[in-house]
């Protein structure tokens, strides 16, 4: 495997980590106003992700940084091309991050309700937009021979990408509901399981619709063949299994299954892209690849050494935090904030 491929894989891994982790905390943020009928319950719900959300979001920052360092043209073309959706995403992430910190800092119910809805919006919008972005990435967007995006905002809003957006929204919300079920007790635990049960069918349906739609809208499956291989099938099997596991109250396993669905779906998309990083809908020769978009060999080498040293360290201490805060959170817990 050459370094270009290694970095493509590494960025895929960063996105998988990001969607797996931030996926459930988006879901928790989306469900919070609906499952939390009183202030204390809302605080409990927020505290299930309070410790983790910021560390989870750094996966995105690192993925962005890695794209910049390893594939500057990918970073430049995609970020300038997807300009308005990214602005919306940033606005959402800003209000979301602030809500966590600010909502409990004032007792006024209006203040709290306001920030709770900001947290909802800040979780809802990115959960939707990430699906839109991934769908456009694999579907292809107008890119000219100079690696410049030539479309506008509405090129990004096609039916396929909207289905992609709804799929990621549903999947993250389901993932979050199961996480809540894992992290809480009593009434809240029951309610979140009921929500997960309700969400399961539409989520599964969307995933299959999105996949089948992909056969017509993208070249992914002509490239992968009719038998797409083990990874996409794994995504499908895992989501089917999760339904049975939720019903039978194996929430830990169900969480692993939605996690596998997320990981395998992102992997499928990256496999469909490879060795391209941005697909041009105008001319296949204008697509950006891991070779045309990449940094020099020297830079990739330097970055590889740094990544090999520090990624494992990050994984160790992030796992450690999940271990320290492994207990379920109840209304009786010390809700330090």
């Amino acid at each position: 495997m050459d370094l270009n491929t290694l970095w493509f894989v590494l960025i895929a891994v960063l996105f998988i980590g990001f969607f797996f982790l931030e996926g459930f905390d988006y879901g928790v943020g989306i469900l919070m106003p609906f499952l939390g009928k009183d202030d204390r319950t809302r605080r409990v719900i927020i505290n299930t992700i309070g410790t983790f959300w910021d560390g989870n979001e750094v996966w995105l920052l690192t993925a962005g940084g890695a794209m910049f360092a390893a594939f500057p043209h990918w970073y430049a073309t995609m970020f300038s091309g997807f300009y308005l959706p990214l602005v919306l995403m940033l606005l959402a992430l800003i209000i979301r991050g602030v809500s966590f910190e600010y909502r409990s800092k004032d007792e006024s119910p209006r203040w709290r309700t306001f920030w709770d809805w900001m947290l909802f919006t800040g979780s809802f919008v990115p959960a939707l937009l990430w699906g839109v972005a991934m769908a456009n990435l694999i579907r292809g967007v107008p890119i000219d021979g100079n690696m410049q995006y030539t479309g506008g905002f509405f090129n990004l809003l096609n039916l396929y990408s909207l289905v992609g957006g709804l799929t990621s929204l549903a999947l993250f919300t389901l993932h979050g509901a199961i996480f809540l079920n894992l992290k809480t007790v009593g009434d809240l635990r029951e309610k979140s399981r009921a929500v997960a049960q309700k969400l399961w069918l539409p989520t599964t349906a969307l995933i299959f619709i999105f996949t089948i739609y992909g056969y017509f809208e993208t070249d992914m499956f002509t490239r992968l063949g009719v038998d797409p291989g083990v990874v996409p099938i794994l995504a499908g099997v895992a989501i089917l299994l999760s339904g049975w596991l939720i019903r039978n109250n194996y929430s830990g396993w169900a969480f692993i299954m939605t996690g596998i669905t997320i990981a395998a779906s992102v992997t499928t998309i990256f496999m469909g892209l490879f060795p391209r990083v941005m697909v041009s809908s105008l001319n296949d020769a204008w697509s950006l690849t891991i070779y045309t978009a990449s940094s020099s060999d020297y830079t990739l080498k330097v970055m590889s050494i740094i990544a090999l040293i520090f990624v494992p360290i990050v994984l160790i201490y992030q796992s450690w935090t999940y271990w320290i805060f492994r207990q379920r959170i109840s209304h009786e817990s010390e809700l330090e904030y």
Partner: protein
Amino acid sequence: MDALMLARWQFAITTVYHFFFVPLTLGLSIAVAIMETIYVRTGKEEYKRMTKFWGKLFLINFAIGVVTGIVQEFQFGMNWSEYSRFVGDIFGAPLAIEALLAFFLESTFLGIWIFGWEKLSRKMHAITMWIVAIGSNLSALWILIANSFMQQPVGYVIRNGRAEMSDFFALLTNGHVWVQFPHVFFAGMCTAAFFILGISAWHLFKKSEDALVYQKSFKFGVVYGLIGTLMVILVGHSQAQYMIKIQPMKMAAAEALWQNENPAAMSLFTIGNEKERKDVFAIRVPALLSFLAYNRFEGEVKGINDIQQEYEQLYGPGNYVPPVAISYWTFRIMTGLGFVMLFMLLFGLFKVLKGSMDFAPLYLKLMIGGIALPYLANSTGWIFTEIARQPWAVFGVMRVEEAVSVAVSSGEVFFSLIAFTLLYGSLMAATVYLLKKYAVAGTSEVIPEAH
């Protein structure tokens, strides 16, 4: 306005806004870590109250620094795609490393710190705050490594139509980093100190309960601030001497020095005519600029017109003169405030050394207002160092107008500029409201814990 101008405004607004909150994070993280360490070492309860009180304010401020930082990392690709293409090979690396080494560290361990009071041993809990402080300051280091490349590009070759990294270690050992980073680091200490001093002064002025905490905080602030401010000034001095060597135009603009001079006089007050590049009215101290530049009363300091000619030879025709008035005044405000702050602290030290915490109401009021000074100095400092580099994005290598995104229309930038400005404006209101609320409430609000 065209897309370029709008993108410049957006970058300026979002960056200045971001850095409005960052220095307090840098300095206060260390201050809180020190307080908690004293608590763990001595077991004195007042230090726990101090840790919680200043820690709470730290968190409010930290949140907004973090979320506005995300915009910074994405903005290069969004608004400056041609910049990203041209220098991504060398400039992307420190940004990626910043995320991997610093962002993960500060965000993960801050989560542990907030929620871990009952889960960790006291010692371990204090250590997590130290890790947060290290993470925050490490992030400053890496982003300044990136910024230093723009001020003094090193470790690259122009190949394949772009700047490619040829020596990673040259980026790290770039002389510019090691004058700029300490300057920012100590400015963070200074900012945190004035924040602590101002709020403590308010409570001392109001004779709040728990006076012990505010007295100890005040003493801490005086010492912490003196170290910070003194070092900012000293490092700033060597930074200026460094600037004369690598960016003479920046220094010439800072001094509104139109022609080469030997020995060079320093301007105390100049009203200039920027178009015709000459003074309208000026009070100047002979030979002082040479002294500041070279530690002796002679030596040539280059002037704007001469450097302009030199650069035309070097880089081709064009205007290489940055906006002189802005450079001149921001530089003066920054340096002037440094000395004002130093005197305010020295007076405090004088009183504290005499063993008296009985400050005159006027001094306390001054210290409350003093909270604003480091913010003003931090902002003018950055506005100066970035504006006086113009027209360059990367000094001598890439101009700002070559750096802007091709695919983004002026309408799109207009929308985002308005959206960010409005959102940032309202967040500023919310943040100031909360900081004020918790600052005024004092330690009664943090012990017992509010939920």
